[in-house]
């Protein structure tokens, strides 16, 4: 039977690995920012970044046993909404200025 501390350490390692995996996905999604032909593609990368970042943050904070992680995630979720909306409105204005 593994010791409780071993189990906690194993869980922490798993959560850290999961956070790393999600971050890798987000990093790949950022490639869209590089090659995206339209502003819409860039906004979508930002959206993925926000959601993936929140997931990675929650996993990391739980793995490191930092209880404030949920509060940080709350702020990120709210501000990601704010920034995404600002982007989307900005993009709509730009695509009309360009015409």
């Amino acid at each position, binding site marked *: 039977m593994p010791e409780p501390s071993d189990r906690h350490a194993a869980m922490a390692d798993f959560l*850290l*690995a999961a*956070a*790393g995996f999600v*971050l*890798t996905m987000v*990093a790949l999604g*950022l490639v869209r*920012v*590089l090659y995206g032909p339209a*502003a819409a593609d*860039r*906004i979508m*990368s*930002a959206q993925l*970044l*926000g959601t993936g*970042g929140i997931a*990675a*943050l929650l996993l*990391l*904070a739980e793995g*490191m046993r*930092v*209880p*404030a*992680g949920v*509060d*940080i995630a*709350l*702020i*990120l979720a*709210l*501000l*990601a*909404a*704010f*920034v995404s*909306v*600002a*982007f989307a*409105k*900005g*993009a709509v*204005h*730009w695509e009309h*200025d360009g015409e």
Partner: protein
Amino acid sequence: MVFDIGLAVLVVAVAAWTIAARDVFAAVVSFVAYGLLLALVWVRLAAPDVALTEAAIGGGLTGGLLIGASSRLRGIEAPAANEKPGRGPWLAAALLCSLVSIGLAMIVPVLPEPSPTLASQAAANLAATGLSNPVTAVLMAYRAIDTLLETVVLLLALLAVWSLAPDRFWGGLPGRRQNADPESVLTFAAQLLVPMGILIGIHIFWIGSVAPGGEFQGATILAAVWILAAMAGLVEGPPVSRQWLRLMLVAGPAVFFMIGLAGFATAGAFLAYPEAHAKLLILIIEVPVTLSIAATLALLLAGPPERGPQ
């Protein structure tokens, strides 16, 4: 360990991309990504207070500011992209950056371990301040003068932004007119997000005494919620000449300063709190400061007045 290296590489890569991006929009998205990654780094270093502040201010607020700035720069983006610095300044900048990087790389490994710190003394005197979060104790009790000066600096920045308004719009409505359809998705979402945001902002402000949080972070959330409501067309920014708005802006620093002066009489020094009432005094300071900072940040985000007062 692999995670740490991967995160560090990602941070550097995103930073490099932010600088190298040709398109302003992509650079701003990249910068917000950079702020998010930094928040992750701070959590990894077990510094949740810094992570919270980075997420709120570095990510959300600065992102909003940059988007506003980049939309105003849209007209001159093409000619500005053709300007390049000459050989001389480029080489000088590269040399200085390299020197700083090498200096840091040489110094950081030989720092004394454990590093000299006042943390134990700060923690030991925590009971006298009535708070249990040492970071808030530093901000509001041990180094309250810094926080007071920060609030004043924010006000000065706001005055600088207002001074950019053309004379005929002085005292007018900040920001552009928003063409918002009252039946649209954005309006509906804002009607849901705004109450939740206000709740979250108050929560973050309130738990600052026992957990990561505090007035600047709470104020940032409230300011972002206001701007969201303005973008959705739910509220129309008040003209900046309104008396009540100006009172709200100065109320925080004013209360802070007066309680500081009262410290001479009650506890013997500027911004000293008598031990029995420390927590109450800090609370009395924090509430108006949060409101003032929220208003200041919201107005900073909205920009200088661009329409006449109505």
